[in-house]
C-alpha cells in the first residue's frame, strides 16, 4: 500500500530538512522524499504546504488503564493523542494494579495493539506497587518491552532505594525517570508555597521539595551511571541543577509541561479552579520564564503533557480534596506553536527536537526521521489554523484542562503511524 504526500513543508533537523517536497511511503516506510514524486497506485494527498514532521511523541502520559477506566482508557487516551498530533506516547505505571511486572506490560501493549490509535510505549514501575521498598522485576519487563522505569505519581522517597533502583536499572540501558517530590517536605502541599498558598489559605508545596530530589537523583546518577530523566521539572533552580549536571557530562535529561511553561500560580484565583491543581504545582512567573529559557538553550530535552485525566466529579470538588493533574494531549502542540514557535522564541526545528527527536532518544526507541527507510510515523500540521480550546472537542474522556477557552494557532490535521492514517483532516480514522 502506497501513500504519496504532495506539497509538504518538510521539517526535520535530524536530516537538515526545511523545504517543500513530496513524501512517498510504501509498506509503512518512507521510500523517497523529493520533488515531483509520482506513484502508480495508492493514496495521494496534496497537503498544500502544510508542515510535515517526524511523528510527535509524548513520553509522559497517564492512560489510566487498567484500573481507572472511568477517567481514561487506552482507546480514548490514544485517540486524544492522535487528535493532538502524536504518533506515540509513553504511559505511566501508576495504574491499578501498578505496572510492576511483565503481565502489566503485556496487557497494555495488547490493548494498545487492539484498540489504540498510536504507539504505546510502556514505562514500568521502579518499585513494586509504587511502595518504594522492593524492586520491580525490571529485567522481565524489559524482556516484554518496557522502555523505562519510574515511580511517577509519588517518586522514590528513600535515597538508598533510589540508589538500588538506578544501580539495578543500569544493566538494561533503560532510563530511570524520576518524579521529584520529597514527601516529608511537601507534606499535604496543595499549591506553590508563597503568594498563592498564603492568599488562598492552603498548605504550600515548596519549590525546594522538588529541587532536593533533583539534586539527590543527579548525585545518584553520578554514583551509579544510570541514565536519569527528571520528569515535569518546574523550578528555575531545578533547571540550573540539570544544566550543571549536563555540563559535567552526566547522562541526565529533563522534561517540562506546557502548563508549567505557559501558566503560573497567579492563574489560581478565588474560584479555586481545580483544573489548575497539578503536581508539581504551577510555579511563579520567574520559574516559567526560566523554563522557557531552558527550552531555548537545550537544557530542556522534551516537552511532555503529563496528561492526567480525572472524572468530572473528582475535579468538581473542594480544591484540597480534588486530585492533582490536568489533561494535555490535545492542546500541547498548539500551545507550543502559539507560545513558542509563532512568536519566534524557538524554531520549528527546535520544536521537532523537543516533541519528536529527543523523546525517542530518551526512551531509546527507534529513530524516526524524514529520510528513506525510516518508519513512516508522520505528523501533518496546519500552522495557521486558529481555534479555541473547547471541552466539547476533546476526545479524551476527561475535560480537566487548564486551557479551556484559550485561543490557539496551529494544530495537527493528519497523523500517520507506520504509513496508516490515524487522523485525517482533524478526524480520527476508525
Amino acid at each position, binding site marked *: 500500500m502506497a501513500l504519496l504526500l504532495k506539497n509538504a513543508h518538510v521539517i526535520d533537523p535530524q536530516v537538515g530538512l526545511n523545504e517543500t517536497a513530496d513524501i512517498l511511503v510504501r509498506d509503512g516506510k518512507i521510500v523517497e522524499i523529493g520533488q515531483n514524486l509520482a506513484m502508480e497506485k495508492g493514496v495521494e494527498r496534496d497537503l498544500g504546504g502544510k508542515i510535515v514532521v517526524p511523528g510527535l511523541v509524548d513520553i509522559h502520559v497517564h492512560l489510566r488503564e487498567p484500573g481507572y477506566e472511568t477517567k481514561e482508557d487506552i482507546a480514548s487516551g490514544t485517540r486524544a493523542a492522535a487528535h493532538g498530533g502524536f504518533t506515540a506516547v509513553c504511559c505511566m505505571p501508576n495504574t491499578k494494579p501498578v505496572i510492576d511486572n511483565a503481565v502489566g506490560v503485556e496487557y497494555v501493549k495488547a490493548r494498545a495493539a487492539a484498540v489504540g490509535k498510536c504507539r504505546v510505549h510502556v514505562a514500568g514501575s521502579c518499585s513494586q506497587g509504587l511502595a518504594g521498598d522492593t524492586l520491580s522485576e525490571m529485567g522481565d519487563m524489559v524482556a516484554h518491552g518496557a522502555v523505562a522505569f519510574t515511580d511517577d505519581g509519588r517518586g522514590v522517597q528513600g535515597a538508598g532505594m533510589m540508589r538500588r533502583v538506578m544501580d539495578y536499572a543500569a544493566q538494561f540501558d533503560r532510563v530511570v525517570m524520576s518524579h521529584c517530590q520529597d514527601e516529608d517536605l511537601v507534606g499535604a502541599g496543595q499549591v506553590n508555597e508563597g503568594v498563592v498558598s498564603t492568599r488562598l489559605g492552603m498548605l504550600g508545596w515548596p519549590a525546594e521539595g522538588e529541587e532536593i530530589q533533583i539534586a539527590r537523583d543527579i548525585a545518584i546518577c553520578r554514583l551509579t551511571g544510570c541514565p536519569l530523566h527528571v520528569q515535569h521539572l518546574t523550578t528555575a533552580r531545578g533547571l540550573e541543577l540539570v544544566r550543571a549536571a549536563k555540563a559535567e557530562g552526566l547522562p541526565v535529561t529533563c522534561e517540562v509541561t506546557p502548563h508549567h511553561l505557559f501558566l503560573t500560580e497567579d492563574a489560581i484565583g478565588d474560584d479555586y479552579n481545580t483544573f489548575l491543581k497539578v503536581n508539581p504545582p504551577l510555579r511563579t512567573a520567574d520559574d516559567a520564564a526560566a523554563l522557557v529559557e531552558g527550552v531555548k538553550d537545550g537544557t530542556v530535552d522534551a516537552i511532555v503533557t503529563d496528561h492526567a485525566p480525572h472524572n468530572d466529579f473528582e475535579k468538581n470538588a*473542594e480544591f*484540597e480534596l480534588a486530585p492533582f493533574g490536568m489533561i494535555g494531549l490535545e492542546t500541547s502542540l498548539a500551545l507550543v506553536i502559539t507560545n513558542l514557535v509563532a512568536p519566534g522564541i524557538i524554531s520549528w526545528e527546535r520544536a521537532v527536537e523537543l516533541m519528536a527527536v529527543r523523546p525517542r532518544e530518551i526512551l531509546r526507541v527507534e529513530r524516526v526521521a524524514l529520510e528513506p527507510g525510516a518508519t513512516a510515523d508522520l505528523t501533518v500540521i496546519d500552522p495557521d489554523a486558529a481555534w479555541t480550546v473547547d471541552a466539547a472537542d476533546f476526545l479524551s474522556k476527561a475535560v480537566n484542562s487548564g486551557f479551556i477557552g484559550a485561543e490557539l494557532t496551529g494544530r495537527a490535521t493528519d497523523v500517520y503511524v507506520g504509513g496508516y492514517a490515524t487522523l485525517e483532516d482533524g478526524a480520527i480514522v476508525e
Partner: protein
Amino acid sequence: MAFNHKHLIDITEYSAEDIMTVLETATRFKEVNERRIKQVPTLKGVTVVNMFNEPSTRTRSSFEIAEKRLSANSLNFGGSSTSTVKGESLVDTVETLCAYKIDMIIVRDKHAGVPRKIADVSGAHVIDAGDGKHQHPTQALLDLYSIWEVKGDLAGLKVGVVGDIGHSRVCGSLIPALKIMGCEVTVIAPPTLMPARPDILGADHVTTKLDEALPDLDVVYMLRIQRERLEGAPYPSLREYNMLYGLTKEREPLMKPDALICHPGPINRGVELDSYMADHPNRSVILDQVYAGILTRMAEMYLLLGGSEDGLTA
C-alpha cells in the same frame, strides 16, 4: 455608598464603608438583645441553613442565636449527618439543600474555598463561617466591632497579631480587614507558625520578638494555638511557647496603658494568655467579642438578605 453584597465570603471584597455599615447596623441590634423579648420578626419566613461540616460549637451557637433573634427558620446541617460521610459530593449536597428552597447558607468547612464553591453552585446567600486555613470574615467583623467600640476610630491603630498566623483562618480575614480600616498591623510568631508571605495578607511588620513589639501596640490580638491543626509540633513545648509568645502578667509593664487584649476563643489558659491577662478588667475585651459576634452576625444577615437586588431566592 450603598451596601450591595450578596455574600460574605472574602473580606477583601468589602470596602471600609461596607465594614462601617456592618458595625453601625450591629449597634442597632444591641437594643433588641437587651430587652425582655430578644427577638424581632425581620427574617420571618427566611430559611437559613447552618452547614457546619467541621465541629464548631461557638461559631455555630452564635449564628443560631442571631438567626433566632431575627426570627429566621434555621436548619442545622452537618456533624455526623454530613453527607460526605456517606460519600456524597459537596456539590450534590448543596444542590440537595437548594431543592429545599433555602435562602442562606452559613458554611464552616475544613477546606479552603468551599464557601465560594457553594455560592457558585447554589444561588443562595452565603456566609463563610470559616473555611480551612483561608478566611473567617464574620470573626474579623466581630473583632473590628469590639475594637471600634472601645477605641472609636480604627484608622491609625497599631494592632499586633500574635501566634499561629500560618494556620489561622482568623488571620486570613482579620489582617486584611484591619488594613482596609487603616490599621498598622504587626504579626508576631515563631517562623514555624508564620505563613510563607505575611505581606500578602497585609502585615506591615513581621517579627519574632513579642517584647519588642508590645510597647507600640494599641491592640494585642492573641491567637489560639491550634493544636489540632498542626502536624508535627512547630514549637518544642507549650511551656516554651508561653515563655516566648504568651501574654502574661510579667509582660504587662511593656504594654501601653490603654492597650486592649483580644482573643477569638476558646482560650488555652497558661499558653497564649495567663488568667490575669485573659480576665483583665480594663484590657480584655474577650467576652465583648463574644457578644459582638451576635450583634455583627445579626447585622450581616440583615444587610445581606435585605440588600440583594433580586430579593430572596435560592
